[in-house]
Structures are given as structure tokens and as C-alpha cells.
């Protein structure tokens, strides 16, 4: 019996959404169980965790797309009831209750809200969440709802039903992905910080919630009395809270710093202090925020203990804290902003009961060693913050990594988007423009004189047909509109409707059902540009007429063209045979695609000298799998000599000891690793007692023991030369320190910030084990000297004797190799010298851009993974490699494919083009090149995202967008001025 092909996703964290997207794109249906009653209940917490006020609502577009196409079954108010069977053949039973308002039929007319008789706390019993112009969810506060049913009566499309029955459904699925969102600590959990006891204490997520309509502005921090605070304290609460109550997601230090910087932006005179135990901006990119904050005048206070005490009757609280030297301090602030972590998942007991997955000692879901998302139960996976506190890039990476792990349990693909209806060739026909004006099921009748508008539009030059339609956004109305278009015999269409950002798919469907290419059609925001924002009926009529006239001028000159296609070579090339390269190669090949692996050393495996025994065994297993795979070809002592082409069509020459080998490939995975920083000074290399952590580990494995060990952190990190945190060193150092303590050695750790991260609180364990900690200032490292009694570490007035001094060295990019490879691949290095993985400046942007604009080919089919991307631990290296493999798998098997925008891409009028290359220079996606023979620009269709940068830079319109041609725009602009 073959495996099931559908996947059940239980929970909706970012990783889960990303996995859903990857599955749908790979041709697998999925059932998405949302515990909440609407999309994004966890939105504000997540927004506060992202250290950017970046609205990522568009991230849900893939989900909508899949629902419309049939890949996704989304359930709300859902709960998994029973799981039986085994991997590949699970039988699941779950209950759900549909949302009160079916988004797909809702026109957001707000009539339900108008007629609701109940008002509580400033809003009606039925209201909209979130409050942006996008995926508005209508929810009913059932505590106050009187069940009068007025809202249901007035809904024009029947999208609203107050009483939705609870349904129990069953399904057969091949795998289950658990993706519960994280939980914020409760007010009670935060009682030491006066939350709920004073108007002057607020959560960062609440600030994010308030900022949704306006972005972060002064209003977001206004106190209940109306006053804008002038003194602020931003507290990273997990640093000071009772152990086990909240866990620190990696980004919190950066979130706090970011919030501080933004406060200074909007209130330059404000006094802003950030309170944390250590600045834990681990990894590439985060140290820059720290510098930014200091430059902006933010004070960063490192505290040992902290609590907040409210002041009765005042809009002020006092922060009581002790500094490292034991001194007690107080700091009054008008507003304390709590940057909170996440609580251990409360659903674990339920999940264990249902599925057999186990919780680890911290209460998070256990994952098998060296896997990204596999739980102890075959076929059941867990992603995101359910498995432990983590940063946002990591959460998002787990989505596609899950794909690679899930696929082996799934059967054949069971989803393919239906081909569109056949389109009519209208190129020989005289142009006939039809204007269809939506009345939104009668709602617009009151607001504007539609028959007067109809009359005026009919009189416009070029308009052959006008009519008013009921709507174009529900099943029946889409069909009806398509009929009307067809019957009217027009070959250009202007739809005066609403929000194409949300509904473009629906409008495209309507016009395509009528046989017309969407390039010949224009969708106007009749509702957003006129109906909902104006009041004067006469002026609204004039404005509508102008907008429609402009649309008519545009579509009259529209030209139909089919989507260009390009072929995608279904092969992959992996550069680098270490852990990351081996993982990526293995995952891609296991799914049937040939891989060429290029390694510059004699043997595969990479930098094995840093691995533990288990890790080494794992890597050796991988090497064996890769060497034995039929469809992986390994070249050792080889390197890339030449790279030509672009995503999907790379022609590479690999220089091997036997001579050059040409390789055609669709994607290139860069897994070339990094180096350990070689310390300078500290008597390293001069004294046998001074060593790196790796050297210490080697000695310990050998059984060597000494009485006193001193460690110095941040050697080769967070300096001008290496301007980032190398992430691994604190975890590694403290693990070693704890092991040393077990052997009886005295251990002193000299540090700037202890930046441990992850589920295991090495810092606390080290302190409990008796490791001593001494802080040194950022700009003055301790000295290491040898004296009669051994080695001496000197930090100001403090001197510590030691037998061994261990330097925690950072990870630095292999600069020479990176430069050369970067040139060859035409792929930039980022500020820190690692391979940039997307055109972004901070790792968070990378995660968000991947979620909101899942454009696998945005970096031209080149995927840096592992240490080539950024300092990463063993598990994280596997994660980045599997994420890249997952993203590759989504596109690699497609054969000939159109670009994501289908027919909406850029193009070139060769007769006008002078081959000046400006368009090539400005294209963010490397989607253009100059044909040297004809000296004209050409477009690589896959890579073009229709931004139009090429259009603006081209002086004579040789470069154009299919839906934004020169002829169209001037005529449309002029018409708007009438």
C-alpha cells in the first residue's frame, strides 16, 4: 500500500506556515489546523519578537493562494482528537468550528458591525481583527453577543453565520507536523515587573499591537492619562525572571535594543535605558544594532538582578537593580517596556497523549539528535518555538527543512494547480473596452449615484460597454461577471472593484473565464480610492470618472502575451563537502535529483577536528551515504573554475585533478565553511599553557587535568576586525567549563557578555557548578602573563592565577576563498564577509523576506549554507542545509516553468535598445543581461519579479513591463488630469 500524500499541520507558528507553503509548492495537499478562531492570533507577540517594525501580513498570501487552488484545507477553532496508525498512514480525527465569517465570501462591507446592537469597551460584539487593509478577520465576542442574528440578516453574501456547528472530521495523512505558536508569559509570571500593577508598565507586544495602524509612533507609547513619557526603561525580562518561567528567544536583546533605537527616532530628547544581563545578540548582524544604539544615545545597563516597583497613583515606576559590583541602584521611569520571552508550551501534555511525542526536561518538544524537526515518533514532526526558544530566521528555516524530512513518508504528489481556461486571441479584433462597476451587493448604491456614473462612463471615448455588477469576489459573482464580460463581446476590461492586493486572483479568474488575458485588464480600487474615503457625492463621481477614464486609456493600449517559460536544469551543484554540503547533497539526491559535489581537500567531511565523537560518527555516516549514492558525483581536490549562466541554467566548469569537467546545474549550494580565528597576543603560540577551546577539548579527551583554568571570551569577535558575535563560543566555553568543574578544576571565565542561547541554560548551570565569572570592558581585554606560579590573567586590579588559559576564538570567513568564489558566482558577500543569502542587510530581513516573498530564485539560485552563511552550531548547520535543500526541491523538478508573476514580467523592445546595460545594473534579481552579439538587453524570465526598476532607468522605454508600457502610462496620466 503506498503512503498517503497529504500532511496534517497542527498549529500555526511561522515554521508551520513555511512548511505549509513548501508542501503546497511541492505538490502535496495539507490540512492546517488553527487552534485560534482567526489567522494570526499570535501576531503581536511575534511582531514584538521580530526586531523590526515590519508588517508581514503579506506572508499569508501563499496560504490564500493554496486555498483557492485546492491545496489547503484550513480549519479554525480546531483541536486534534485522535491519532492512530503509523508513519505514512496516519488516521487522524479532529474537530473544528468554522470562522464566524468566511473570508472568501466576505466583502468587508462592515454592515454586520453597523447593525450590531451590543457595544462593549468601545467596540461592538462583532469586530475586525487585525485592523489593517488586509485579510480582515471578523470575530464575535460571544461573551457579550446576544445572538440576535441581525448581522447575519444584513450580510450580502451569506458569509456570516453566528452559529457555526462544531464538526468532527477524519482524514488519512502521511505525516503530521506540530507547529504550535509560542505562549507569552502571563501577567502573573511577570508580577516581579509590576505588569498589571501600574499604568507605566507595558509589554513590547502590546506596543506592537498599538502600532499596527500607524507604525511605531509616539502614540504607541502614550500613557493612559494622555501624556507621552520622557523616560523609558526597556527590560529584557527573561534575564531577571525566576528560572523556568520564561525562555529567551535568541532575538530578545536585539528586540530591546531595536525598540530603544526607534524610541530615540520618534522622541529624540527621551532618556532611554535598556536593562539586560548580557547583550545576547548572537551571530551575524546583531552587533551592529548595539553600536547603533550607543551612537543614538541609548544607555545600556547590565544588571545582575532587577525588579520593578510601582508607585501608587503615579504614572511612574522605579526599576530596582543591582550591578555587577553588587551595588544597588534605582532608576525611575515613566514607562517600562517589557521585552518578554516565551513560556514553555502548555500543550505538550496533550500532544504527548495524542501522538506519543515526548517533552524534554525543559518542557519543549523533543527532537531526535541531529535532525531538525523529527520527533521520537516516526512520521511526526515539530517545528518552530514548540521545540525550543529560537530566533526568527531559525523558525522560518525549519519550515523548508521539515519538507526534506517529511517527504520520505509521503506518497506521490497529489496536488497540481488546474490549468487556466483557454484564452482567446484578440490581436486581430478592433479594441472594445468594457467597464464593469461593482455595487458591492448594493452597498455602494447609497454612497454614490451609480446610474449617473454609468452614463458618464458610456460617453467616454473608447468605451464600448458599461454595466454595474453585483460583485466579483465570491464564487457565484465571479462566474456571473465572467458571463457578463463574455456576452458583452469586449476584449479589454476595466473592473471598478476593490483591493486587488487581496483579490487579484479572483479578478484574474473572472476575466480568464471570459477568455481574456489579464494583461488586457485593469482592476481599480473603487472602494478604497472612492467609496470608503470620501463623502461628497458629486466629487466622488468626478473622481470615479477620472479613475475609470485612466483605466480605460491604459487597457485600450494593452497587449496580450503568454507567460514566458524557461527550462530549469534538474541538477544541483554543491560546493564544499563538509557537514552542510553533505547534508544538502544527500537530501536533494534522495529525492531523485543528480548532484555534483565539489570539495577542495582530499577527503570529504570538512573540519572534523572540532566535532565530538557522536558528531563525528554522524558525519562519517553522511559521507558514506553520499559516497554510495548513485546520483551523487563527488570530486575531491577540485574547485570551481568557471561559472556562467543564471538560476536554472548554470554552466559550470569544475577543475579536477583529471582535468576540467563541465557541469550543467540548476542551482549552486555554497557550503564552503569558514575558519577559526587565529588568536594574536595573549601569549598564544608562545606559551604551551595558552590554547583555544578546541585545543582544550583535545586535551580533555586525552585525559589531561589541571587545577586552575581561566577562559577569555570574545577573542576575535565583536571587534573592529571581526564586527559580529561568533555565536558558538559562549555555549561551547561554558559546556567545557562545566566539564572542567566536574573534574575538580577551578574555572574563571572572563567575558564581555555571556551570550549563551538555546533551551539549555548553560549560564545557570555553570554558575551552579561554581564557575566564576569576571566581566571586562569592551575596549580593554585582559592581559595574559607568565609568572613564577604559572599563568596570570590580569583584568584591571584583578589577577587570577591559572595553569591553562583558554581563548574562546570566533568564526571568521575564509576571506580569500570567499572573495574568489563571490567573484566567480557574481554573488555578493555581506558586511561581515560571509555569503549574503538574500539581498538584505540583517538576518531578520532574510527570514521575513523569505516568508513574505517566497521567491526561491531571488538570489539567482545560489544558496549559501552552514558556516559559509554565518557562524552556526552543528545542528544549525544541518538546519540551513536542509532549508536550502527544501527550497531547491520546491523548484528543481518543474522542468519548463513560467516566472512566479506568470505573464507579468519585463521585456525589451530590441529595436529601441542600445545595450547600455543600465537596466542590468539596477535589476535587484539579476534578471537581465546584455546579449553581446546583438547588443541588446534580455530578460531571464524566472528571475524577474516585475518591479520596474529597469523601466525607470531606461531613458527611452526600450525596457518595459508588460502591464506598464510607455504608451499606456502617459495616456493614463493625462486622463487622470481631466
Amino acid at each position, binding site marked *: 500500500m503506498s503512503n498517503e500524500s497529504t500532511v496534517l499541520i497542527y498549529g500555526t507558528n511561522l515554521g508551520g506556515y513555511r512548511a505549509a507553503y513548501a508542501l503546497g509548492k511541492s505538490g502535496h495537499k495539507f490540512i492546517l489546523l488553527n487552534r485560534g478562531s482567526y489567522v494570526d492570533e499570535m501576531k503581536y507577540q511575534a511582531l514584538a519578537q521580530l526586531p523590526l517594525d515590519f508588517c508581514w501580513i503579506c506572508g499569508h498570501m501563499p496560504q490564500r493562494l493554496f486555498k483557492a487552488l485546492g491545496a489547503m484545507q484550513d480549519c479554525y477553532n480546531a483541536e486534534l482528537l485522535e491519532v492512530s496508525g503509523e508513519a505514512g498512514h496516519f488516521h487522524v480525527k479532529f474537530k473544528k468550528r468554522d470562522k464566524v465569517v468566511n473570508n472568501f465570501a466576505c466583502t468587508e462591507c462592515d454592515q454586520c458591525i453597523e447593525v450590531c446592537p451590543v457595544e462593549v469597551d468601545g467596540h461592538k460584539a462583532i469586530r475586525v481583527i487585525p485592523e489593517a487593509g488586509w485579510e480582515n478577520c471578523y470575530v464575535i465576542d460571544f461573551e457579550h453577543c446576544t445572538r440576535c442574528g441581525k448581522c447575519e440578516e444584513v450580510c450580502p453574501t451569506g458569509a456570516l453565520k453566528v452559529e457555526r456547528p462544531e464538526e468532527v472530521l477524519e482524514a488519512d495523512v502521511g505525516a503530521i507536523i506540530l507547529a504550535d505558536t509560542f505562549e507569552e508569559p502571563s501577567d502573573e509570571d511577570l508580577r516581579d515587573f509590576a505588569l498589571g500593577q501600574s499604568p507605566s508598565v507595558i509589554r513590547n507586544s502590546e506596543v506592537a499591537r498599538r502600532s499596527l495602524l500607524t507604525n511605531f509612533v509616539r*502614540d504607541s507609547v502614550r500613557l493612559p492619562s*494622555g501624556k507621552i513619557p520622557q523616560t523609558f526603561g526597556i527590560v529584557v525580562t527573561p534575564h531577571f525572571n525566576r528560572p523556568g518561567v520564561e525562555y529567551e528567544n535568541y532575538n530578545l536583546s536585539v528586540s530591546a535594543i531595536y525598540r530603544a533605537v526607534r524610541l530615540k527616532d520618534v522622541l529624540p530628547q527621551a532618556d532611554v535605558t535598556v536593562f539586560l544581563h548580557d547583550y545576547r545578540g548572537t551571530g551575524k548582524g546583531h552587533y551592529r544594532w548595539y553600536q547603533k544604539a550607543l551612537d543614538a544615545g541609548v544607555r545600556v545597563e547590565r544588571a545582575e538582578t532587577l525588579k520593578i516597583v510601582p508607585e501608587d497613583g503615579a504614572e511612574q515606576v522605579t526599576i530596582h537593580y543591582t550591578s555587577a559590583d553588587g551595588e544597588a541602584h534605582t532608576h525611575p521611569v515613566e514607562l517600562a517596556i517589557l521585552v518578554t520571552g516565551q513560556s514553555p508550551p502548555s500543550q505538550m501534555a496533550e500532544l504527548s497523549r495524542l501522538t506519543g511525542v515526548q517533552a524534554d526536561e525543559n518542557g519543549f518538544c523533543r527532537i531526535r539528535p541531529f535532525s531538525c524537526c523529527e520527533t521520537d515518533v516516526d512520521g511526526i514532526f515539530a517545528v518552530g518555538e514548540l521545540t525550543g526558544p529560537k530566533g526568527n530566521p531559525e523558525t522560518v528555516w525549519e519550515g523548508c527543512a521539515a519538507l526534506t524530512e517529511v517527504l520520505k513518508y509521503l506518497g506521490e504528489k497529489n496536488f497540481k494547480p488546474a490549468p487556466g481556461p483557454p484564452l482567446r486571441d484578440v490581436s486581430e479584433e478592433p479594441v472594445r473596452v468594457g467597464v464593469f462597476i461593482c455595487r458591492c451587493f448594493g452597498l455602494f448604491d447609497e454612497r454614490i449615484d451609480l446610474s449617473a456614473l454609468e452614463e458618464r462612463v458610456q460617453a467616454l*471615448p473608447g468605451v464600448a460597454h458599461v454595466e454595474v455588477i453585483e460583485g466579483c469576489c465570491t464564487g457565484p459573482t465571479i462566474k456571473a461577471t465572467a458571463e457578463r464580460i463574455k456576452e458583452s463581446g469586449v476584449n479589454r476590461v476595466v473592473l471598478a472593484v476593490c483591493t486587488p492586493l487581496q483579490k487579484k486572483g479572483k479578478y484574474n479568474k473572472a476575466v480568464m473565464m471570459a477568455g481574456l488575458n489579464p494583461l488586457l485588464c485593469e482592476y481599480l480600487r473603487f472602494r478604497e480610492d472612492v467609496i470608503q474615503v470620501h463623502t461628497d457625492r458629486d466629487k466622488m463621481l468626478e473622481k470615479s470618472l477620472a479613475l475609470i477614464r485612466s483605466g480605460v486609456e491604459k487597457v485600450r493600449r494593452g497587449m496580450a502575451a503568454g507567460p514566458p517559460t524557461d527550462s530549469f536544469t534538474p541538477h544541483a551543484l554543491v560546493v564544499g563537502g563538509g557537514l552542510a554540503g553533505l547534508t544538502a547533497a544527500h537530501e536533494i539526491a534522495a529525492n531523485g535529483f543528480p548532484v555534483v559535489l565539489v570539495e577542495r581537500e582530499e577527503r570529504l567531511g570538512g573540519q572534523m577536528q572540532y566535532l565530538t565523537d557522536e558528531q563525528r560518527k554522524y558525519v562519517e555516516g553522511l559521507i558514506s551515504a553520499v559516497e554510495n549514492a548513485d546520483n551523487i558525483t563527488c570530486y575531491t581536490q577540485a574547485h570551481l573554475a568557471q561559472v556562467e549562466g543564471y538560476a536554472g541554467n548554470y554552466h559550470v566548469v569544475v577543475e579536477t585533478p583529471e582535468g576540467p569537467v563541465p557541469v550543467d546545474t540548476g542551482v549552486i549550494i555554497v557550503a564552503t565553511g569558514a575558519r577559526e580565528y587565529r588568536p594574536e597576543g595573549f601569549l598564544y603560540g608562545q606559551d604551551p599553557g595558552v590554547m583555544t577551546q578546541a585545543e582544550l577539548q583535545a586535551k580533555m579527551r586525552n585525559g589531561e587535568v589541571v587545577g586552575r583554568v581561566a577562559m577569555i571570551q570574545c577573542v576575535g569577535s565583536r571587534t573592529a576586525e571581526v564586527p559580529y558575535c561568533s555565536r558558538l563560543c559562549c555555549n561551547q566555553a561554558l559546556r567545557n567549563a562545566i566539564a572542567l568543574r566536574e573534574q575538580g578544576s577551578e574555572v574563571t571565565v572572563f567575558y564581555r557578555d555571556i551570550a549563551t542561547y538555546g533551551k539549555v541554560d548553560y549560564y545557570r548551570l555553570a554558575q551552579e557548578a561554581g564557575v566564576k565569572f569576571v566581566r571586562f570592558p569592551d575596549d580593554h581585554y585582559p592581559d595574559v602573563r607568565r609568572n613564577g606560579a604559572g599563568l596570570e590573567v590580569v583584568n584591571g586590579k584583578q589577577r587570577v592565577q591559572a595553569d591553562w588559559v583558554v581563548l574562546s576564538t570566533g568564526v571568521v570567513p575564509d576571506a580569500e576563498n570567499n572573495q574568489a568564489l563571490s567573484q566567480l558566482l557574481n554573488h555578493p558577500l555581506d558586511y561581515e564577509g560571509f555569503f549574503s543569502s538574500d539581498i538584505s542587510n540583517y538576518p531578520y530581513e532574510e527570514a521575513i523576506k523569505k516568508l513574505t516573498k517566497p521567491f526561491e530564485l531571488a538570489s539567482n539560485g545560489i544558496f549559501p549554507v552552514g558556516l559559509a552563511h554565518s557562524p552556526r552550531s552543528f545542528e544549525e548547520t544541518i538546519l540551513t542545509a536542509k532549508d536550502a535543500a527544501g527550497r531547491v526541491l520546491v523548484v528543481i523538478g518543474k522542468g519548463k516553468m513560467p516566472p512566479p508573476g506568470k505573464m507579468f514580467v519585463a521585456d525589451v523592445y530590441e529595436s*529601441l535598445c*542600445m545595450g547600455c*546595460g*543600465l537596466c542590468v545594473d539596477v535589476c535587484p534579481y539579476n534578471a537581465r543581461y546584455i546579449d553581446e552579439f546583438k547588443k541588446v538587453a534580455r530578460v531571464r524570465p524566472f528571475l524577474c519579479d516585475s518591479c520596474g526598476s529597469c523601466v525607470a532607468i531606461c531613458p527611452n522605454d526600450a525596457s518595459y513591463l508588460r502591464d506598464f508600457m510607455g504608451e499606456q502610462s*502617459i495616456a493614463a496620466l493625462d486622463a487622470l488630469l481631466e
Partner: protein
Amino acid sequence: MNNKGAILPAEDGVESAVIGWLKEALSKKVFDALLIPVEVPAGDSFAYLLLRNPALLENASPLPPVMPVQGAKAISRLTMRGNGSKRVAAIVRPCEARAAIELTKLEQAHLDNLWLITVDCPGVLPLSDYLEDPVAGAARFAEASQRWDRAPMRPVCQICHHFSMPASDLHIGTLGSAEGTVFVIPGSPKGERVMENLGMPLDAALDDWAARVKEMEEVQRERRRQAHTDLKAGIAGPDGLLDVFSSCINCHNCQRVCPVCYCRQCYFESAALKLPPENYLARAGRKGALRFPPDTLLFHIGRASHMVLSCVSCGTCEDACPMSIPVAQVFSLLADRAQETFGYVAGRSLEDPLPLVAYEMDELHQVEQPYVETYHGLQIADCEQEVQDA
């Protein structure tokens, strides 16, 4: 690179010295060809010749009195399709060299096998003045340029402050040289190689030249500043501006002769601007009347927005205008201001990226419209006042 040059004897004048030098270079195959202005047989103009036979250098001139064709256009036509395998030296005015550098950034010229040879430039005569009586014109030019008197020259030449060495490969320095000599100054490794091949030792100090150039530059800058101030006042606002362009007939000569206007078909002649009658009638309805052919101002301001960042203020456009509109003066003013906004100088160096391609994350904040938060229509400050008053 500008520290030392060579001294070239020039007892019979700059022209014969330079031509003699070039003849030697061509004969010795240091170059395979020259691109150089030569007087036309009829004696009433000058044209660029791609010259391979040294004997034809008789009527050549490194500093002809007029610039009917902007040298960069010739360089572009020659090298648009690549560097070729032969070495060519182009003897051009500094502004022509700068335009060639801009065109190279736009892939319309390739300079790897092309040597730009420039001369300290006194300007050129306006073409119409010269054409009235070419012989008298040539004489007038020779006499004025001897004294570095720019009064008879093109208006933009009169205020030019980039008249000396641009980023060319070789430069003939005529300012500050001893009587009867000129300097030959290398500006690049390939320029140095040529001088080596010609056995010209780099043993002459260039301090006098540099000082004289600097002195003249300061005078020119002041003239330019004054001229631009006066011009700006004269063309200010719609009235001033439209008066200046009121006689424009849309012939597009200015665009055609401009070296940095490289489009095969100018946007302002494209289908985008050719609209059905309703469009013109609507516009005439709004304005009361519409002049034909229309889009004159759009052409000039629009063309400015397309090319003014690469404008080298050569003045060829003004020479070509049949209606004597001071196009070059207006564009030169626009160019200075626009290039200054981006800290860019057209043609200064091949390494300078084009300002519309490059960008900084943190710049030009003066362009961004600041936003003061309002709260239900009130300014925040008002709100706080309300709270305090309450």
C-alpha cells in the same frame, strides 16, 4: 601621474608641434590610426577623420576653431561594438574626452584600445559666427586663443572651468610652458607607455603649468558662478523659461548632436507621446489652447532629467539650434546643480558610478517630506497642551 611631463619643442606654434608629434607616432606605429579633426577640402568646416596615412595630416588641427561634431560621438561610433585590436588615438577637446568617458560607462564606447589625447582648451567659436566667414573666423579664433581671450567663443566655453586635463591618457599642456614649448603630460599607464615608446623622458616639472591652470580655473569658476546667477534670474519661473523656449520648433537637433544622448529613438519622439486627437483636445480644453507640435517643455525638462547628470557642458546643442535658443547655457546650469546634488562630476573618472544607478542608504534626507504625527487631526503638541490645561 601629473607630477612630471615631457617638453615638446614648439617653435612654429602649438599646432605644428602637436601634428608633427602625432605624425611621428603614427609613422612609428605607436598608434595604428588617429581620430583627429581635419579641415574639409572646401575650407569652411572641420571634420573628424579616422586617419591612417600620415601624409593626410597636412590640414589636421588639434584645436580647430569650431566643433561641428562632438568628438565623443565619433569615438562612440568607432568603438561602440568593442575595443578592436588596433590602437587609435583620438585628439579631442577636454569636454569631448569627458563625454567619451560618460559614454563608456553607458557601454556606448570602449576605451581600452583608444588613447584620449587632449589639449588645454580656449573654447570654440559659435558655428554660425564662423560660417559667416570661415577665413576671418579662423583668424579671429587664432588671435583670441593666443591671448586666452574667450570673448568670441561659445557662451558655455566662456564660462568653462574644465578646460584643462581631464581623465585622458595624454594631455598637451600649453599653459605655463616656456616660450616655444608645450608640455606633454601622461594621464594613465597606457599614456606613459606611449611616451616611453616615443622616447620622451618624463623629466619636466609641471608646477608652472599646474599653477597657471589653477589660476585660470579660479577666474573661470567666478565667471561661471556669475553667469549662472544671471541666467537663473533671467529664465526664472514659467514666464522666463517659456519665453526662452518659445521659438523652439521641436526639431530635436539639440538631442541629436548631444554626445550623451545615446538613444536610437528619443523617448520624446516615441509612440508614448503620440496620442489620439481626444487627448490633445482635452489638454487644449484645460489650457485654453495647445501649441503644435506640442510637448516642447516636456521635451526639454524631460530630456534634462534623462541626460543632465552626464552633461559635460560642451555647447554643441546650442550651435545646432536653428532658432538660436541658449540651450547649452540652460542645460549647463541645470547640469551643475543636479550633479552637485549627488557629488558627481560628469566625465571626471571611469570609476565614478552613474548617480542613478548607485545609491546610499543614508542620504538625501532633504528630499524626504518630514511627517509630524497628528492625533485625530490635532498636533501632538496641542494634545499635550490640552492635557496640561485640563
